[in-house]
């Protein structure tokens, strides 16, 4: 495959997915502003604590969605005397210094700035009091104060007053590498699945979506193939258990605590059934029905509007009649009008 060979589909479904993707993209101006604020935070932290900063999250990974509401940043604080770590000092003192430095250095530019670090599990929360995306309430930053793990891979990051192992720098390397290898189709498809996740009560976190994608999206893909491959892989992987950390350092990635694992898998199975039906209807040359399934899939009228529903009814009625009455009367199943299950070839009745 040459560099010019990004797989493309000229289909209705692929075209609609790309159109929808453009509706959820963040503008370059918003990204520039978010990065500028992140850089200001990084400078303040390095002045106070030294060491190195790392970037993480959707902006660093190239998969940010509109509206843009937050940015992620970490600082790895030097600890030459080995004072911090599991069984030693907790992260509290470092977080307090970091929070003070942020307030001191950014308050002039952001008069409504608020910085919260007490009773939080991992990050310092910075509220700028000034949104990046118009009409949003605010823009925030999650700042992690980490230390190097002297005896193993990765970092120690806060877990309230103790520390957890993690490797966020490696995570960002892996995602950037996948973006390069896929010629950015990894990030584009990830945006679509993140948006799906957002509209279905977030059964899993964004990082879990990317961790799953790292195992199944390894080269350039169309958006259709990204979604199909991702759903198949996610169902298979989650049926085995929680997603392992791709860096092999932290524990497995937790699902949303409001869901059981079987509920998460059921959500993805339903999504897969709807998406597969869209592809089937496209193959059967019912593009309006395929688009209607995509609208059901994303459940977001602004991002993927439904086609005219009376036209959908007429097309489905025509399809149903052809499929049902061209089959022998005794056959046990006929096409359904839904993605729920096959249809038993019943006869409507009343007593």
């Amino acid at each position: 495959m040459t560099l010019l060979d990004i797989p493309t589909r000229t289909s209705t479904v692929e075209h609609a997915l790309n159109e929808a993707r453009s509706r959820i993209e963040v503008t370059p101006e918003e990204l520039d502003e978010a990065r500028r604020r992140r850089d200001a935070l990084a400078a303040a932290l390095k002045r106070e604590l030294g060491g190195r900063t790392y970037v993480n999250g959707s902006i660093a990974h190239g998969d940010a969605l509109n509206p843009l509401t937050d940015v992620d940043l970490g600082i790895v604080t030097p600890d030459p005397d080995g004072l911090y770590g599991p069984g030693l000092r907790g992260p509290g003192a470092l977080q307090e210094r970091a929070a003070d430095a942020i307030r001191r250095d950014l308050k002039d530019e952001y008069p409504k700035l608020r910085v919260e670090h007490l009773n939080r599990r991992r990050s310092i929360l910075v509220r700028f009091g000034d949104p990046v995306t118009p009409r949003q309430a605010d823009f925030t930053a999650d700042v992690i104060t980490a230390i190097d793990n002297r005896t193993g891979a990765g970092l120690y990051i806060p877990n309230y007053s103790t520390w957890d192992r993690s490797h966020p720098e490696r995570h960002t390397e892996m995602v950037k590498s996948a973006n390069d290898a896929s010629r950015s189709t990894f990030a584009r498809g990830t945006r679509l699945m993140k948006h799906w996740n957002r509209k279905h009560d977030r059964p899993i976190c964004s990082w879990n979506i990317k961790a799953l994608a790292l195992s199944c999206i390894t080269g350039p893909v169309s958006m259709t193939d990204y979604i199909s491959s991702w759903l198949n892989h996610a169902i298979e992987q989650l049926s085995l258990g929680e997603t392992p950390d791709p860096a092999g350092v932290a524990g497995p990635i937790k699902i949303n605590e409001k869901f059981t694992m079987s509920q998460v898998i059921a959500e993805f199975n339903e999504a897969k059934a709807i998406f597969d039906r869209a592809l089937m209807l496209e193959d059967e040359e019912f593009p309006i029905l395929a688009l209607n399934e995509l609208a059901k899939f994303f459940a977001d009228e602004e991002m993927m509007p439904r086609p005219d529903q009376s036209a959908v009814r007429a097309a489905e009625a025509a399809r149903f009649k052809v499929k049902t009455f061209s089959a022998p009367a005794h056959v046990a199943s006929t096409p359904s009008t839904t993605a729920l299950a096959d249809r038993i070839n019943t006869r409507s009745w009343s007593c």
Partner: protein
Amino acid sequence: MSLEPWYGDDPEWYGPFDGDAFGTLGRHLSVQSTSRMLAYGDAAAARMDCGRAVPLGRLPSGYVEDPARVYRHDGIDVQGRTERVAVTVVFRPTRWYPGELRLFDGRNFPSVYAGWMDEAPHRFADGSLCLYFPRDPVQRRWTAQNGLPMLLSLAADHLFFEDVYRDTGEWIAPQAEHGFPAERRRAA
């Protein structure tokens, strides 16, 4: 007290059925056990002065518990509609249809409630959907072995057929004649 062992309390029945249903439908599905008391007794009538007998229904001589296992889905997609439709499926020990002498096994003949349509051609008097002819061969009707997702799929199709019927006056799915053959013969 139920006269027969109630399959709705039997884990060997509802275990696999629920496993399949919840595995497919996830958090959209809920289930509840309920019951109602039914009176039974002898038919009674009063003779009026004019000589006409007026039926009084049945004089209750006892009561029997009529348990139910009720599944609720928070909303299925119906083709051509923008809003999802909630569905309730009620399993009782047996199902009786007007015009039929025998009782049907409730496991394979639940009542399915979804939406409403005035003058619907294929609904029962209580608004439940007439999804299949009870005397059709097993391949052409739903049974519990088909699982709840397939029953909900039939319900979604049925609502779609109603919408098309409302638009065009045509019922586009296969239909059985209303009533039972013996009842039709009597009526003739």
